[in-house]
């Protein structure tokens, strides 16, 4: 829609101006192609953006602008031009209503779409996350780093600690929201050195979970592809809600960021910090960010145990 209107207004501004009855004005000479250009911008935004609702609302704002312009034109015209203008104004009003409906709908869809875990948590259910990255180190090295489970908290933002309790068993603790902590035991249920590790929680975990990580040599002969699948069984009730909310903001983003930090640790030796995100792996502290200024001693001290 945007695309069609935009192309028409840009390609044939004279015709558009004549049909709509504003061909006598100098301003319209500039405004019509302008409006066309705006339509194209909207089309691009709608076609490419994941946040369609925002783009839909900018369309509504654009329509409001068009209506204002038409209103101004109407006030200054009579006769045939006025009749044509009235027709066009009616059409634009209809388009505006359509855009408004689309925007409202897009906003609704987005609300539902962006917090799937939270919705599911009311009844309970499972959430599967997948992510992958390529690390410029051999598979044996990446495997060895991961297999030492106590390394996981260095790059997984929500983990506080993983303690090995046996060859295949471990105890995990994660910072949950609102100051609560979630703890569980886990066991490795399958592994192939240099290739694969699979684990699952055992006993009465608050949030039963399992995961698999595969290490696949990349085509460049140097790097390793790391493929991760995590599954959380989100229970109902208060804990489930809290956990779901914790993961629910952008769970895929969190896992992607975790893998980016794993890559940093293996390739450069540590998690890279900037002045704007000084807490390194603690992703939840990165947003909202402080300005890119260094920390005071007090802030540094606070960060160490935050």
């Amino acid at each position, binding site marked *: 829609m945007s695309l069609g209107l935009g192309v028409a207004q*840009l390609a044939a501004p004279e015709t558009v101006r004549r049909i709509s009855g504003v061909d006598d004005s100098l301003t319209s*000479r*500039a405004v019509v*192609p*302008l*409006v066309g*250009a*705006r339509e*194209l*911008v*909207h089309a*691009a*935004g709608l076609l*490419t953006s*994941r946040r369609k609702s925002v783009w839909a609302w*900018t369309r509504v*704002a*654009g329509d409001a*602008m068009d209506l204002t312009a038409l209103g101004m034109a109407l006030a200054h015209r009579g006769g045939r031009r006025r009749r044509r203008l009235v027709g066009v104004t009616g059409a634009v009003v209809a388009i505006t209503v359509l855009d408004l409906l689309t925007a409202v709908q897009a906003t609704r869809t987005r609300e539902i779409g962006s917090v799937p875990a939270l919705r599911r948590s009311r009844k309970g259910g499972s959430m599967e996350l997948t992510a992958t990255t*390529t690390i*410029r180190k051999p598979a044996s090295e990446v495997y060895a780093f991961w297999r030492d489970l106590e390394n996981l908290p260095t790059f997984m933002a929500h983990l506080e600690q993983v303690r090995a309790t046996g060859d295949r068993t471990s105890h995990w603790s994660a910072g949950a929201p609102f100051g609560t902590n979630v703890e569980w035991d886990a066991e490795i249920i399958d592994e192939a050195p240099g290739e694969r590790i699979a684990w699952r929680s055992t006993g009465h975990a608050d949030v039963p979970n399992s995961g698999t990580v595969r290490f696949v040599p990349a085509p*460049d002969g140097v*790097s390793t592809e790391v493929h991760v699948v995590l599954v959380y069984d989100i229970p109902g009730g208060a804990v489930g809600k809290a956990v779901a909310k914790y993961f629910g903001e952008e769970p895929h*983003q969190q896992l*992607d*960021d975790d893998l*980016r930090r794993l*890559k*940093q640790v293996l*390739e*450069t*030796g*540590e998690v*890279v*910090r*900037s*002045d*704007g*995100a*000084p807490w*390194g792996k603690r992703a939840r502290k*990165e947003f909202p*960010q*402080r*300005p*890119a*200024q*260094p*920390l*005071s001693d007090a802030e*540094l001290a606070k960060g160490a145990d935050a």
Partner: protein
Amino acid sequence: MRANTWAGRNKVEVRDVPDPKILNKRDAIVRITSTAICGSDLHLVNGYVPTMQDGDVMGHEFMGEVIEVGPGVDPDRLRVGDRVVVPFPIACGACAACAAEMYSCCENSNPNAGIAEKMFGHPVAGIFGYSHLTGGFAGGQAQYARVPFADVGPLKIESDLSDEQVLFLSDILPTGYMGAEMCDIRPSDVVAVWGAGPVGQFAMDSARVLGAAKVIAIDKEPYRLEMAERAGYTPVNFEEVDVRSRLLELTGGRGPDKCIDAVGLEATHGSAHIAAYDRVKQAVRSETERPHALRQAIMSCRSGGVVSVIGVYGGLMDKFPAGAWMNRALTLRTGQCHVQRYMKPLLQRIERGEIDPTRIITHTMPLDEAERGFDIFKNKQDNCEKIVLKP
């Protein structure tokens, strides 16, 4: 310390901020002796690059003396007391992009890669003083700066060249050079450069050094065109003549063999329509590319030629002349400069006298006058081409 900070759209402010600290093992702290205002700083100040915050320290072109190094810095590469020029992209030296010498696409140096990925599809390297999209690193228009991966990027200056001779190795000289290098220049080539600002001037110098037969400078500021003409290039004022027609005249109807866009997203245009159109795009908060220079370069370039883009673009662009690009077999090449790749060879060219970077400096002032400097630079007052700040 004193630092020039972003204080909102169209506003910078020199303030007192805390001194930088070592945050990673391979960090160094540099006491800055010279820094510069760059054209791309204006995109931040004018509000075209998102994710700037009040108080962010600006500046990505700087040099100085190493006064502290982290425990992970390789002492064979860098020590306290070294005099260094710091490249604007932060690069780890270990990832696949760095291994391919594509340092501005480093996969590890941007802690906010997630934001950059949403915007660009894949993340880009961290950059000093250049928004949180590129990492949220404090910049170098300050008395001191923290430099991550200090044993990868910074270039040691061991000769007695002045700050002014080597400072621009941090950004604009390699950027201009890369613009020309991407053109695969042959001895018969006519090269047209859109934009006779500092990067454009260095792209022209580089095109000549790389063997171009003729170099054409396109701009509207008479003093910039005069600067290019003094250096031996052919000026074209886009406010006085139709650029495409003039380029055809200058090239026997062929069009330039190679075209360099050294302008980027804030291109100006004589037409009132298009100026108004920009305002509307801003009003609806859509992306604000103004790709007039790029469009014109694509339309003007000879068939089978190369269009090399070193001007900065930020988001989405509309009305890209894909027909001309495809049907006339044009090659489009681009990238933020992989500065680390070019620093040493360009230092040698400076030492041999092949390029004189000081020719573009028109103003030198204390860091505390950065606000005035930005004003002069932005409004092209006082024939301003390039400003060096002294902390």
